[in-house]
């Protein structure tokens, strides 16, 4: 077990180097000279020279890469080009609002989707099954933008059930008042693909031998589903949720943008709009690290709940 973890952590090294090389290539080579971006509308040669020296762009590429590696290791990416805020401060202040919306959203949508998927798998092949599946396909085919626009317009602007947008300071206020509609939209959007995916997990389990055995010894159908099938189908669900998490941190950017939630995703969009390279670089590298760690954790949990799984 320990040997496995160490080997996996060791494998992080080339991947992380690759991610850094990719980011470096994108921003330092294809991205062009940042001094021209920073110097403003009327580039003054002296000022450009100054900025270049400050950023280290006048160094050869291997020294620049070394600077970048030091930045990653010390978690110090300097200041944002757009706002002069420290990049590390941006991270720590934006993470809270993101998680306030993400965690309830993820929990609610997972529970609802599992319940729906179990029912649909129980009625597999029936008209209900087909109707819900087609409903999910149609629901999935509507852009997330439309869900946000229509929910915000109808529920908040027209009917006034929720605030249109905004963010407060207290956790309870944020969660129940400002966060309610974003969470609702997030749940609605993720329900359709989740039900489809989890249904396949349940169907996989329903056709297993142990289900036939349980039925053969006279176990009631609800008990088969709730005790035996649910436990086994929950394993891939958990790993799926864990591996989704880092992507969601960024993927929720549309929701954060429309509802003015000061989270990581909105920060990424702002950074892309302003060509704020330090912020994008930092987000990319750290989200990649988070992805790798969560993938490892997902594998370990998989092993913990299902002893048949062999880690190799």
């Amino acid at each position: 077990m320990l040997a496995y973890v160490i080997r996996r952590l060791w494998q992080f090294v080339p991947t992380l180097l690759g991610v850094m090389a990719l980011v470096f290539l994108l921003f330092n080579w294809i991205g062009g000279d940042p001094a021209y971006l920073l110097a403003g509308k009327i580039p003054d040669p002296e000022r450009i020279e100054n900025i270049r020296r400050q950023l280290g762009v006048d160094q050869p590429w291997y020294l620049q890469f070394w600077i970048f590696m030091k930045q990653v290791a010390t978690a110090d990416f300097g200041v944002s080009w757009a706002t002069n805020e420290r990049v590390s401060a941006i991270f720590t202040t934006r993470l809270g609002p993101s998680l306030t919306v993400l965690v309830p959203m993820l929990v609610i949508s997972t529970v609802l989707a599992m319940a729906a998927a179990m029912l649909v798998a129980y009625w597999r092949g029936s008209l209900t099954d087909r109707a819900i599946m087609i409903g999910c396909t149609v629901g999935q085919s509507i852009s997330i933008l439309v869900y946000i626009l229509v929910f915000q317009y109808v529920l908040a602007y027209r009917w006034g059930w929720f605030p249109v947008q905004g963010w407060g300071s207290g956790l309870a206020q944020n969660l129940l008042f400002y966060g309610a509609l974003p969470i609702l939209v997030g749940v609605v959007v993720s329900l359709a693909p989740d039900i489809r995916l989890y249904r396949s997990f349940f169907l996989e389990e329903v056709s297993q031998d142990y289900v036939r055995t349980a039925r053969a010894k006279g176990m009631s159908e609800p008990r088969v589903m709730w005790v035996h099938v649910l436990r086994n189908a929950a394993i891939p669900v958990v790993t799926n949720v864990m591996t989704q998490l880092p992507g969601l941190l960024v993927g929720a950017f549309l929701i954060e943008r429309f509802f003015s939630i000061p989270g990581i995703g909105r920060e990424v969009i702002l950074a892309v709009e302003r060509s704020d390279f330090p912020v994008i670089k930092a987000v990319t590298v750290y989200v990649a690290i988070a992805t790798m760690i969560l993938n490892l954790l997902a594998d370990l949990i998989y092993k913990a709940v299902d002893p048949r799984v062999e880690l190799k």
Partner: protein
Amino acid sequence: MSPAATALPASAGSASRGLWTLAWSRLTRDRVGFASLAIVVFYVVVMCASAAGLIAGDWSREVGVSYAPPGFQGPDDPVARSATAPTVVPESAVEDLGIPDPLAGVLAEIRRGLTGAAGAETAAATLPLGGDKWGRDVLEKAIKGTETSMIVGLVAAGLAVLLGTVFGAQAGYRGGRVDDFFNWIYSVFTAIPYLLLVLAIAAVLNQKGTLTVILILGLTGWTGTFRLVRAEYLRHKAREYVLAADAIGASHRERMYRHILPNVSHVVLVQLSLHVVLFIKSEVILSFLGFGVGVDTVSWGSMLNEAQSELLLGIWWQLAAATVAMAVLVTAFSLFTDALRDALDPRLR
């Protein structure tokens, strides 16, 4: 193609049927899948006609009054215009608050001059699916948007699946160092969440345009195909027919692309279909955020972007047109993908 498929069952006893004819006959039996295919084909025809300039060629012409509501009053008689134009145009937020607009008189005069000038041609009071802010026909915009989104989806998916197939074939067939190298690239690309990678590249390139969107999506989206194709090649390379091909002197390249590729092409085809859907959705989001197609191109994403502010005025038809056009295509494409998978690989059912 269909006469061949229907004629085949009669002769099935004499000659064994190939994968593709079998798959085709399974597909025609699947009614949902076949109907979806018909819808997809319809969209492709619309796309081609639009690209050739046969329809919606003059989408940018301002044919109607500003925010012309949907309806079939058709090109206008002067009475209808004078009746509708004043009610539609001067709806400003200021008047709602009860404060008189100090510039109202001046604006009304300018507006009268403008509509008079435009009305000298034919400014329709209503359009089939309504009009946008400049009085452009939403139906024509939706058609043009279909062209843009479909071209981006199809070409980017083609590029991504081509890359994934070539990389996967190399990694799976050659193994060893080549495999290690491609697996490393794969782990790097999958460590970064897909949308973040797309946005990061959009930030660096910092230029809009259809080609840019295609390149961004195509160059980042190959990982899923790579994983599946590599696994298929690993399974196939030790099979008898590949060894036989080796024995008759087929080169590595021939074995990879002439012998194995047709046998894994069902995986590639399903991936292609899946990625078209994924990329159409991504393009809409990118264009909506303003990192997508250029300002002189209309896409569903840019239509939704305009609809965002229109909705506050109660103008819903552009939103509805873009949403329905996209939802019908994506639903049909997804159902077709499912049917295609079932038809090509019946074991999965």
